[in-house]
C-alpha cells in the first residue's frame, strides 16, 4: 500500500483545515463589500479610492494600523473629523467590514501621474498661498491645506481646483455644525442698503458672523437685516479651469496629494 508522502499529506490537511475558513472569509468579504457600498462608498469611493474622504487603497491606514483600531474607527467614528459613526452594527457586521476594508489596502492606489515638484511651482505661480496655508505659510481666507492629501483623494482635489463650488467642504466640527457648508458665501444687506459679501464663520437662528473678502469680521443680528442670501452651491474660490490644465493641473494635484502634514 502506497503511502502519501508527508508533503502531500500536509497539503491535504491544510486544504481541509483552510477550506471552511476561506469560505467563511469570502462570505465575510462579500458581506463587508455590501455594507461598504451602502454606508462608506459615498465618501471613500466604490473601490476605496477616496473622494471627499481618504483613500483606503493603502497598505497602512494611519488612523487604523491594526484590525482592532480599524474596528473601533468603524464602530465609533473619529471625533472632529468627517468620519461619523454611521450606524450601530453587530460584531459580525463590524468584522466583515474590517475584512473588506483590509482587502481595499491591497488594491493598487490610483496612479497620480503628475510631478509634485512642478506642482509646487504651479501652486506658487497661481498664487494659491494668497488664501491657503501650507505648513504655516500662506493666507487664511480659504481652508488650510497642510494635511489635505491625507483626507482627500486626487479626483476630489482636481474638482476643487476646476469647479470649487462643487467641492465645498461639509462641516465636520461643532462650528458651524456637522454637515453645514463651510466657507459658504453669503450676501448680507443691511437696513440702510449697505452690502457685505463674505464667508459664513458661524450662524444661529438669530445672528450670523461673516468674514468679508478683506478679512474683516462682521456680526449681525438677523432682525437688523434687509436680506440674507446664503449662496449655497457657490464658492468664493475662483474657478481655475481656465488658468490651469493639462500637465500643470496633474502636477498641482500631485503636489496637493503629497501634503500629508508634519510627520
Amino acid at each position: 500500500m502506497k503511502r502519501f508522502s508527508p508533503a502531500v499529506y500536509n497539503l491535504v490537511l491544510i486544504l481541509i483545515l483552510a477550506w471552511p475558513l476561506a469560505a467563511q472569509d469570502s462570505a465575510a468579504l462579500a458581506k463587508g463589500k455590501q455594507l461598504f457600498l451602502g454606508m462608506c462608498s459615498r465618501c471613500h469611493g466604490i473601490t476605496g479610492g477616496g473622494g471627499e474622504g481618504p483613500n483606503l487603497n493603502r497598505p497602512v491606514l494611519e488612523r487604523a494600523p491594526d484590525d482592532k483600531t480599524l474596528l473601533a474607527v468603524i464602530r465609533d467614528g473619529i471625533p472632529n473629523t468627517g468620519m461619523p459613526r454611521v450606524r450601530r452594527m453587530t460584531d459580525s457586521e463590524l468584522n466583515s467590514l474590517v475584512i473588506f476594508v483590509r482587502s481595499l489596502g491591497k488594491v493598487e492606489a490610483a496612479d497620480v501621474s503628475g510631478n509634485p515638484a512642478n506642482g509646487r511651482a504651479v501652486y506658487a505661480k497661481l498664487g494659491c498661498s494668497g488664501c491657503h496655508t501650507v505648513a504655516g505659510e500662506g493666507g487664511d481666507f480659504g481652508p488650510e491645506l497642510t494635511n489635505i492629501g491625507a483626507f482627500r483623494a486626487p479626483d476630489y482635489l482636481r474638482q476643487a481646483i476646476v469647479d470649487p463650488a462643487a467641492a465645498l467642504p461639509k462641516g465636520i466640527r461643532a462650528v458651524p455644525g456637522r454637515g453645514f457648508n463651510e466657507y459658504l458665501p453669503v450676501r448680507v444687506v443691511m437696513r440702510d442698503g449697505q452690502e457685505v459679501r463674505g464667508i459664513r464663520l458661524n450662524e444661529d437662528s438669530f445672528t450670523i458672523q461673516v468674514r468679508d473678502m478683506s478679512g474683516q469680521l462682521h456680526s449681525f443680528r438677523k432682525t437688523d437685516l434687509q436680506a440674507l442670501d446664503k449662496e449655497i452651491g457657490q464658492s468664493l474660490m475662483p474657478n481655475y479651469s481656465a488658468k490651469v490644465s493639462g500637465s500643470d493641473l496633474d502636477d498641482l494635484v500631485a503636489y496637493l496629494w503629497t501634503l500629508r502634514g508634519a510627520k
Partner: protein
Amino acid sequence: MKSSCTLLLLAAGVALAQVPYQRIVGADSNPGSWVTYSGNYQAQRFSGLDQINRQNVSQLKLTWVYQMQNSGIVETSPIVSDGVMYLTEPPSTATALDLRTGRPLWTYTPKIPSDVIIIGSPPVNRGMAILDNTVFFGTVNCHLIALDAKSGVVRWDTKVDENQKGYYITSAPLAIDGKIIVGTSGAETGIRGFIDAFDAKTGKRLWRTWTVPGPGDPGYQSWGGESWKHGGGSTWLTGSYDPQLHLVYWGTGNPAPDWNDDSRPGDNLYTCSLLALDPDTGKIKWHFQFTPHDVHDWDSTEIPVLFDATVNGRARKVVSMANRNGFYYVLDRQTGEFLTAVPYIKQTWTDGLDAKGRPFARRDADPKVNGTLVYPDITGGANWWSPTYSPKTGLFYQAAREIAGIYYKGDAEYKDGTAYTGGGGERKTGDDAFGAIRALEATTGKQRWEFRLITPPLAGLLSTAGGLVFGGAEEGNFFALDADSGKLLWELQLGAAIRANPMSFAIDGKQQVAISSGASLFVFGLP
C-alpha cells in the same frame, strides 16, 4: 380622648403634606408652583402666570444659575413647590435647590453599577414626580426611588426590572392618587415593554401592563413566531391623566429590532401606540396605533396632550399628539376614536392615512442594506421634548424638525443586554435641514404660524398666560415668541445647546422662567 388626639394628629399630618394628590389635580389654580412633569395632568406645559408678558419680556434678567455636578446632557424638567426646586442631573442624581437662591438643600446619587447597560439614548434623566411629602425618580439601572422631599432621605428603592436585559429609566414618573406610574426604556436591546404602577407609600408594585401582548392576549396575533418576547414597545416618556375619566394616557415606543422587520410580520401591537389605561388595574381601555409595523424607530412616546374642544361641531374631550412619524393626531380620549391627523412636517414614508388614521405606508421607504432616504430622520418630527397647548389661544405649539435620514437595514441577533436594532439611521444634517416652532390649531392641526430655526431643535416649549411661547435652540439661544403671531420678542445666547423643556413658577410672587443649557440651569425673572 386618645383616639381623637390621634385623629387630630393624623389630620394635621394630612394637612401638612406638601403636595397632596388634590393639589396636582388643581395645578392650574396654583400657577406659582409646578407640581408634575408637564405642569398639569393634562400635560399642557402651560403656565397661568402672566407677569412676564409681550410688553416686558425683553427686560428678563438672570435670577440665578445652577451648575450640574456631573457632565452629560441635561434634559431635566424641574418640579417646584413650597420654596424648593427639585431637579434631576445626569445620569441619575436627584437634587433639591432653595428656590430663592439656587443653593442646594440636599442631593442624592444612588450607586449605579459600573456595568450598567444604557442602549438607545444618552444617559439622561428628565425629572421627578412629587406626591405628599415624597419625590420619586427613576435611574439608569432601572430602579424607582422615593426620597423624603425635605431631607432627601431614601424612603424606598425598588428595582423595576433587570438592567442587564437592557431596561433603564430616563423619564419622570407620574404621581396620581397613591400611585406612581413609570415607564421604561430599552427597546434597542429587545426588551418587552411595560407600564408599571407602584404604591407611593411602600414601593410595592400594584400592577404591570405589558405593551407587547403574550400568548392568549389580544394583539398577540400581530407578531410572528417568538418575536413578541423581544418586541420592544418601551414607554420612556411621562404620560398624562384625566382625573374625571380616571384614565391614564401613555405612549409606546418602537418594535424591536428597529430597522430589520424580518422576524416580526404584522402590526406589532401595541408598539408605536397610545394606550388609555385604568389606573386602578392597568387594564387597557383603548389603544390607537399610529405606526403599525414601524421600521424607522418612530416611537410614539411623545407627550399626549389633553384638552376639551368643539371638533366638527361636537363638544369633545380630546387627546392630541405631534407624533415622531410627522403627523399631528387628534383622538377622542374617552373612546380612542380617530378624529383627524395632518402632517406638520415633510414626510415621505406614507401616502396619507385612511379614514381611521391608519397609514398607507410606502414599502419603498423601508430601510435597505445600502440605505433609503426618508423624511423625517430617526429622531423624527417630534421626540422627547414637550409641546405646549395654550387654553388661551387654542393652539398646540411644537418644536418641529425638517430633516431627512438614511435608513439602513442590518443584522439582528438577540442576546441579553446587547443592541438588537437590525440596522440604523444617518441624519442628513446641514444647511438643507432646519427646524421650526409651529403653532397648530389644536383641533385641526392647521398651521397658524411658524418661527424658523436653522437647525432641527431638540428642546421643548412652554406657553404662558402672558401670551408667550418660550423655546430653545441647538445653538444655545433661549427665546420668547408672541403666542398669537410667532413674532420674536426676546432672545439670549446661553452658551451651549438647549435640550430641555422650559417651565415657569414664582419666587415670592414674582414669575420666573427656567431652562437648562449645557450643564447649567438658568432662571430668569423681571428686574
